[in-house]
């Protein structure tokens, strides 16, 4: 028997998905479906937009208004959909390369405008679709097919980047922490304004194999052991935080005017 969320929100004719065994993307996709279900959104009024890459295939499997665009441009297309019809709940699914390399400019400007779009970045620390090249989130020193001698780039912290650029909601979770991820996505969608969810996911095929991270299960265990909630971290002594990554809610700012509402207010003002 299928998970009832699959029957309700997935396009069964398009499954199975194209993702590799052990890939964490499906966990995020299901968390999104559950969050939408909890919020009781009308499927006809949800629009899911993506760019190019492994994660960007997700909209094809989801039974909403779905738009699979060009590499890096999902947020720009989504801005058009949202501004033209603010009634729609617009959700962008992107990857670390799609959102923060080729689409980095659109990310910071969508955040700056505080337009009511929820962006979920499936961060697997690598370009998976093209076979394992280093991305803007590949840790320094790690290997990629284009970093055969070790990556000398410094990585982005996507959740912090979005918050600094003006996103009024920014949070991070991982595919090991499914319940928290689901709760964060739910809050992000319900948030008025631009919201960022950085979802740390696993790519055993390229990132894991190249960097000797073990099996898919080993990679999930790494997420379990390495991520601590920002609220818990506040109370921990420095030595317990060494080598750990933060997850949880980094920013939740209420009361900042949302972009399409500001535009509609201008239209109303001009009528007088």
């Amino acid at each position, binding site marked *: 028997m299928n998970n009832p969320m699959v029957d309700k929100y997935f*396009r069964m*004719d*398009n499954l199975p998905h194209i993702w590799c065994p052990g890939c964490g993307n499906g966990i995020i996709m299901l968390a999104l479906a559950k969050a939408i279900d909890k919020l009781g959104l009308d*499927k*006809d*009024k949800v*629009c899911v*937009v993506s760019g190019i890459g492994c994660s960007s295939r997700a*909209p*094809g499997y989801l*039974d*909403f*208004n*779905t*738009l*699979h*665009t*060009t590499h890096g*441009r999902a947020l*720009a*297309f*989504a*801005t*058009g*959909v*949202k*501004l*033209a*019809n603010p*009634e*729609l709940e617009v959700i962008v699914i992107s990857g670390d390369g799609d959102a923060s390399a080729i689409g980095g*400019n*659109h990310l*910071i*400007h969508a955040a700056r405008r505080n337009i009511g779009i929820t962006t979920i970045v499936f961060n697997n620390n690598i370009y998976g679709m093209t076979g394992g090249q280093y991305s803007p989130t590949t840790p320094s020193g790690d290997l990629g097919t284009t970093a055969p001698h070790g990556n000398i780039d410094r990585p982005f912290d996507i959740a912090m980047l979005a918050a600094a650029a003006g996103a009024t909601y920014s949070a991070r979770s991982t595919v090991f922490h499914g319940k928290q991820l689901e709760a964060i996505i739910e809050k992000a969608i319900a948030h008025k304004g631009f919201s960022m969810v950085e979802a740390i996911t696993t790519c055993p095929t390229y990132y894991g194999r190249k960097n000797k991270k073990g099996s898919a299960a080993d990679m999930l265990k790494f997420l379990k052991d390495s991520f601590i909630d920002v609220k818990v971290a506040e109370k921990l002594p420095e030595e317990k935080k060494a080598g750990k990554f933060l997850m949880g809610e980094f920013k939740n700012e209420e009361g900042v005017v949302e972009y399409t509402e500001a*535009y509609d207010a*201008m*239209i109303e003002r*001009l009528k007088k």
Partner: protein
Amino acid sequence: MSKNIKLMQGNEACVEGALYAGMKFYAGYPITPSTEIAEKSAEKLPLVGGKFIQMEDEIAGIATAIGGSLAGKKSMTATSGPGFSLKQENIGYAMIAEIPLVVINVQRGGPSTGLPTAPAQGEIMQAKWGTHGDHPVIALSPDSVRETFDLTVRAFNLAEKYRTPVMLLTDEIVGHMREKIEIPAPGELEVFDRLGPVDGEDYSPYGLRQGECVPRMAAFGEGHRYHVTGLFHDETGFPSNSTENAGIMLDRMMNKIENNLDDIIQYEEYMLEDAEVCIISYGSSARATKGAIDMLRAEGIKAGMFRAITIWPFAEKRVAELGERFDNILVAELNLGQYVYEVDRVVKGKAKVTHVGRADGEVLAPVEIAAKVKEVM
């Protein structure tokens, strides 16, 4: 009723035409010499309940305009040379995903940053081949302020009717010069509205209804929950790797244009009836060509002009006829030779085809064209 007569520049007439056609969404990025189109759209759209947004770059400009169109609004973006280069990938996206969109390119001197304030007609071939892969293309080019108005309306009509991006190739001269124009009264020009799904029928986003050659388009949010992608897809809209399907789909996209050439192709023939030499031109160069024809006729040389209004698809049948009739055809354009190759291809050696043009930022003067005519005759 009194006539609505205004003095305005080509770029303003473009916005007036767009609003006449029902534009409700504009997204773009400022660039000389097209900026007035963004400025006027920013001013006027919120007054009619429409939306304007200045994006962070040229690529975002067209991507956002496509998003607006998918949400059901008549949508436009405008740019110039460097921006037109940056927009090419998403022009191809709108072609394969069949999204109606108007793309204005106020041509300036290139390549690269080139001559930002000088006129050129350097993107004639880029309009056809600038985005990768084979694809259907519609491009129009006006030679006056009033025609900029009319062709912007027509660009929207063709975009909505054939579900494809339509490019309007104006240039710095037509965009910035001011002329007195009569604004058409509402209803005077045809305005075509996108055909949506039919009530009571199953909706197929990329399938054809009996007797129709363009798929019906539903707006996001109307309840049809379909998928749009830049991958080759089948009638359902979902990606397909089948080469057989790709062939069928590409044929359908090409045929929606190829089978409707009479509806899409427009041209003007000026003093061509008794002419002994034919000059082919378009856009601002056609104005210089008219001047050259007057000069030549004053000297007893019977010159005439074929002016392409629809640049793509090319008026192949008519130009081939002109090739049969004339010994000499000149192509006058503000570049070092672009449309001339298309003319030459179609004329197939039946007439001698000569190019007259320049790409240094100066306008093509009537005297230059007239001198070239005398040289070849």
